[in-house]
């Protein structure tokens, strides 16, 4: 069965600092991987996705993620965090007619 693990429930970074959010997945076939962001009281916005090809994918808002098959990971990164990045981030793996989400990581940004 598919599963996604986000080991960090909360992360706090200083504004301007770099960010890495971890995601590990379990999936028997070629994974389709997603990162979504959710601001309080809002729906899910797609940050980026990986289907195939280049393992480093660029997304919106300056985010990028790297797919590492050997580590079953798809970590999200940003070189310089802005206060507006404070939100909850969900990693997900695509499966037939469903997305399997991780538990989410809440990002706090301190000034």
């Amino acid at each position: 069965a598919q599963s996604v693990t986000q080991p960090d429930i909360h992360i706090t970074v200083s504004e301007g600092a770099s960010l890495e959010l971890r995601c590990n997945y379990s999936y028997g076939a070629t994974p389709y991987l997603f990162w979504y962001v959710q601001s309080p009281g809002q729906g899910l916005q797609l940050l980026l996705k990986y289907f195939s090809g280049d393992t480093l994918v660029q997304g919106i808002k300056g985010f990028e993620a790297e797919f590492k098959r050997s580590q079953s990971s798809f970590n999200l990164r940003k070189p310089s965090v802005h206060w507006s990045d404070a939100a909850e981030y969900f990693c997900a793996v695509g499966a037939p007619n469903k997305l399997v989400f991780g538990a989410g990581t809440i990002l706090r940004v301190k000034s």
Partner: protein
Amino acid sequence: DAMVIQNPRYQVTQFGKPVTLSCSQTLNHNVMYWYQQKSSQAPKLLFHYYDKDFNNEADTPDNFQSRRPNTSFCFLDIRSPGLGDAAMYLCATSRAGQGNYEQYFGPGTRLTVT
């Protein structure tokens, strides 16, 4: 812009009083989903429609029902809401056959049960 729309954004209902949440889409996607998201948790899939075919998740309570009268609209009916049903309800769509499982989400409806 093509999008997924949910109405209302906020809904308050009384314990045991039926409530219906609405979702519409202009993406012309053939699959529509309903997720329940409780505070600080990941979204949990309740069911989905593949065209007109309804697919219930095994652990979705019977209290939750859905209707899809046409391609564009999908409704979530909660027959007798309990306090535990207070949550954010997210609608999503996808185009089956693309093979990548990407889903497009609406802004959600926050349900409060009093």
